[in-house]
């Protein structure tokens, strides 16, 4: 990673005093993650440039890193040794500590004076694109020049990277420039290489003094600085704005797309309420929620004494662990806890533990399976477990036309393998019913559009 700082305020070589690094030679500092070098490509009274080059020890850095399942080599081959990141911030605080604090042994007056400065950051990753760079540095008084780097000039088809070469020009105290870079580089990158705990709030507020509270993007800065950790963010914003409580900022995450799309409809709640009602009407007392996720339905049903046994089954051990933490059976009243069981299992394997139940629910599950696995699901749920009642909900693809943010032909969630029209769902459900000796009826869930139906469709199978 590389940061250059240039001044033309004469005598420019005084930059060496401000940084406490003699422009006459090259300086090296050992850091825990590599070596930082400071050198001066030019040092004349008219113009002086200091460069901070951080040489990351990539091989030493990866020991004991957690493994990323989808990209196992990502820990070893990545842009971290080169891109501007929180490593750069740490290097600034270690190497330019006094300047960052606004102190200078020889030139305190100059340190307190705005001077003309140009800073260049190379390969700065920006989550959210070029606009975010402007939105973050612009309000601080800099002229911002941004050049987005292509992923690979040999393959123009791959498009642009999220890396930018950024030049900031302005007149300000050196300490201000360094502070802004120190705080905002990790914000743009939206990562920090170290654990973010409670003390990070203090650091952020100290470095943000005098500018952060008034910054129009302060929520974004706080949120990303604190790694999206809700309670930290609320604490920091409260202190920053001197308020008691602050609403958490809306997460606009790409992977929460389905929820975001459907949130206005509070569809999930409606689904759960509908399933709950149908189970009650049918007098089901023992119920399994296949694909229980974090256990919302399980929790809801467990609070009603009408249900004697509620099984939450999920195929993901991690999800099930989250469900366990959320439901926290150890802290439930014993009467409720004994009704609830969380099981690791799969809807496409026969499972003796699911035999002899009154009802099985598959709420927004089937669309997460490849279509050619549905015969196995049918055999396992309708053929082998054979409860009196099976409830299946799935998106109604007809309704997708109503979602303005959803491009035509795209699914509501990246993991959906299919989304069925009402006709397609009915064809499948009626086939299952015939083959397996059930009768099926259909109900919409959510606001019904005359032509397109409801956003969610449900099949209720009974025998």
């Amino acid at each position, binding site marked *: 990673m590389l940061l250059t700082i240039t001044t033309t305020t004469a005598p420019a070589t005084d930059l060496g005093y401000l940084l406490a690094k003699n422009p006459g030679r090259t300086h090296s500092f050992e850091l825990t993650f590599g070596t930082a070098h400071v050198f001066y490509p030019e040092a004349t009274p008219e113009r002086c440039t200091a460069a901070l080059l951080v040489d990351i020890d990539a091989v030493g850095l990866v020991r004991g890193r957690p493994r990323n399942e989808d990209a196992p080599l990502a820990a070893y081959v990545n842009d971290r040794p080169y891109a501007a990141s929180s490593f750069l911030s740490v290097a600034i605080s270690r190497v330019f500590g006094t300047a960052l604090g606004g102190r200078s042994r020889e030139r305190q007056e100059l340190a307190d004076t705005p001077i003309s400065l140009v800073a260049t950051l190379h390969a700065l990753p920006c989550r959210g694109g070029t606009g975010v760079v402007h939105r973050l540095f612009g309000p601080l008084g800099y002229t911002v020049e941004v050049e987005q780097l292509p992923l690979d000039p040999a393959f123009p088809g791959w498009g642009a990277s999220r890396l930018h070469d950024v030049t900031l020009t302005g007149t300000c105290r050196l300490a201000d420039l360094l502070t802004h870079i120190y705080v905002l580089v990790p914000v743009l990158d939206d990562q920090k290489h170290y654990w973010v705990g409670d003390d990070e709030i203090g650091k952020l507020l100290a470095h943000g003094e005098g500018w952060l509270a008034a910054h129009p993007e302060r929520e974004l800065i706080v949120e990303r600085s604190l790694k999206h950790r809700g309670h930290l963010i609320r604490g920091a914003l409260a202190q920053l704005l001197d308020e008691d409580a602050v609403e958490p900022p809306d997460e606009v995450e790409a992977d929460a797309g389905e929820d975001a799309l459907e949130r206005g409809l509070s569809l999930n709640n409606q689904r759960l309420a509908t399933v709950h009602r149908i189970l009650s009407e049918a007098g089901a007392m023992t119920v399994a929620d296949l694909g229980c996720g974090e256990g919302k339905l399980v929790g809801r049903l467990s609070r009603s004494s009408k249900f004697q046994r509620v099984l939450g089954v999920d*195929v993901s051990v991690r999800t099930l662990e989250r469900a366990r933490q959320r439901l926290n059976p150890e802290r439930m009243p014993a009467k409720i806890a004994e009704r609830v069981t969380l099981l690791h299992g799969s809807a496409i394997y026969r499972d003796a533990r699911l035999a002899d139940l009154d009802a099985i629910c598959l709420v927004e599950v089937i669309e997460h399976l490849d279509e050619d696995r549905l015969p196995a699901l049918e055999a396992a749920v309708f053929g082998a477990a054979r409860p009196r009642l099976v409830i299946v909900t799935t998106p109604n693809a007809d309704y997708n036309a109503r979602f303005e943010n959803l491009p035509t032909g795209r699914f509501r969630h990246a993991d959906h393998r299919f989304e069925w029209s009402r006709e397609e769902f009915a064809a499948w459900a009626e086939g299952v019913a015939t083959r397996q000796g059930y009768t099926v009826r259909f109900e919409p869930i959510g606001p019904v559009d005359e032509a397109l139906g409801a956003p969610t469709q449900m099949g209720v199978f009974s025998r």
Partner: protein
Amino acid sequence: MNLQIPELSVVLLVGASSSGKSSFARKHFLPTEVLSSDTCRALVSDDEHDMSATSDGFDLLHHLAGIRLKRGRLTVIDATNVKREDRKVLIDLARSQDCLVSVIVFDLPEGVLLARHRARTDRDFGAHVVRNQLSSLRRDRRGIRREGVHRVWFLDSEEAVDAVTIERVPLWNNRREEHGPFDIIGDIHGCYDEMVELLDRLAYVRTGSDEAPSAHHPEGRKALFLGDLVDRGPRSPDVLRLVMGMVAQGTALCVPGNHDVKLVRKLHGREVKITHGLAETLAQLEGESDAFRARIAEFVDGLVSHLILDDGKLVVAHAGLKEAFQGRGSARVRQFCLYGETTGETDDYGLPVRYDWAREYRGRAKVVYGHTPVPEAEWVNRTICIDTGCVFGGTLTALRYPEEELVSVDAARVYYEPARPLRPPDARAGSDLLDLDDVSGRRHVETRLGRAVTVDLEHAAAALEVMSRFAVDPHWLVYLPPTMSPSETAPKDSPLLEHPREALSYFRKAGVAQVVVEEKHMGSRAVLVVCRDPAVGPRRFGVVKPGLGVVTSRTGRPFFRESELQHALLDRVRQGFEDSGLWEELGTDWVVLDAEIMPWSAKALELLRLQYAPTGAAGMSVLTRAAALLEQAAARDPSAAELSAATRERLAAVEQYREAYRRYCWEVSGLDELRLAPFHLLASEGRVHTDRDHTWHMETLARLASTGDPLFVATQYRVATLGDEESEAQVIAWWEELTSAGGEGVVVKPLGWLARDRKGLVQPALKCRGAEYLRIIYGPEYLLPRNLERLRSRGLSRKRSLAIRELALGLEALHRFVEGEPLYRVHECVFGVLALESEPVDPRL
């Protein structure tokens, strides 16, 4: 006295304290066969005389007995058992496991007991206890026979006890010593003509007179009749006569069917409903003699409801038999054999719905049965129903065992209208449904490479998610490839991390004479199942929808997101096999191939965009600028010279890194830009080709490229003789040539696939990657001395152990598939490979 005890039974020793039961048990049974109430009491309380622990002690005893019986072990209960209610608990337990109960009663004179009691120092209770026990025993003594036990013996004196010999006798159903070969024949129902035609077809020679007919097979084969000889059809008496003749002569075996049993109940004068074709049989029997009718009754009464044959590898019963009941004897077992089980529901025709036990069958023995007419005999989980409804106008079917060939003759006509239509074929869909128990928990999978592979619980749990959510339909997933270790790390004086010297040396030391060295293509690993036509999928692989096969990644996921692209590729491969004549030559209509699909960017574009390209872009931007600035600095500041030189070196490394990955990328818009390099022809009908050396695989697969279809790339290879310096030097030179031209490297394999040294299997393959390629794996700057030095310390043993275990499982899966084993047996192995893949191992290896 010689006591004949069934080999699988509960032996209850009954007698007051000091009767000598424990000594008797020690003398006649294995210590592990004897469960003693004293011992169990001691196990739960540390004191075998602690009467307060009696109840818990018995709980333990019952628990242990239950487990032993479930596992089919004879179990002796050494407790006083003098009270009826104490015996009842144990008799019920035996019954719940469908085991017989033998009782040995020690009813010694009171004087003997009391003298013994006085002589013992380890009993702290009074003589009255012994007297009370004795009186309890004597009170119920005569009723023991009626308590539902198989045999009771009374031993009334010390001499009688001493004179006992124990003989363990097999159960009637145990005919393990009968090895056949057999011709197993389904429900005949009085269809005499078809039966005779079938016997002729099977080359039986008929002998005897019209009154006493028989038949035998010149090669000593035995016919095995599955019961339901009578009712509905035109000539039940003739069928009976011939079967009885053959059984009497020892040329046939027979199990009873429900119709046979019902007929005999009628013959015994019992009240039965004259339905389901019994009327026809009774009418036909009117012309027969009383003696013949009596012989029928005697014959059927003497039949055993099921037979365990051929060392336990074959089980026959009229209505089939689930595993837990095999080799057991109880009324419940007999019921199952005759009628099967019902679910308690009725179908649209008002007939009881049968419990489809075969879907859940996981036993080792093959079960052949009849009873329920099916349109076609099909294997389901090692079971097969061969009642093909002859009397309803279907066919009469025989299964030749062990050949497993089906031989059928058509019915001359419909003799009887079925009450409901024969089950349509698609009703069997889902009959091979996998069970969670097939894959979950800690598992030991037996493999024919001579080692059982253990799969840990947590890894199986991880694999369940991948298998359920991301893998292709398990029907297609008959193989997953093993991971591959690199060669040993090159020594310190080498400027490289990997070099073929080490791979050659590994195999040389393992005693391998020749290796094949294959060019390693830099693409993405793929396993292809290719069918000659779409109908092969449902027929051979059991998938629901017809299809040409599947292309999967090395973790069983679909290789292509677009199924159209997969189909197009498979179609070209299918055509390649057609054009090269390989379908005919191999005598198959499907193959499994190991291959590499190029370019890498086709599959890895996401990784390139998120990981590889940004690394290069960031490195180039930063280091280009830094190098320029340092040059400027060095011009006026000599102290910058060193950093300047080092930075130029780093810049060069990033440039080379970028070049390295660029070689494996090209734009792909469809099939035209894809290249397929198959390197193993793993299996085809009837054969797993790991018994052919790699030259065969290379040459055979090269014929696909020779068809002129540009999709196929023939893999370059060399064969090296180990220990021959010139031969080794040639392949090393070839490696240098390949890798300096940007190639990924080579894979070195024992020429004959599998090789063993004294420690067991040798690695099936080692990869030797080129220095430039490894930048993609270890990072752009890995070759800088300060990095390389640290990277050399890498441990390969875990990776190599995984490679061997995964190989054993993967090949086992293929063998099982080729042998026609049920889906769950194949899936167990493939699932195991996937589970092992979740073991943490350095991904750079």
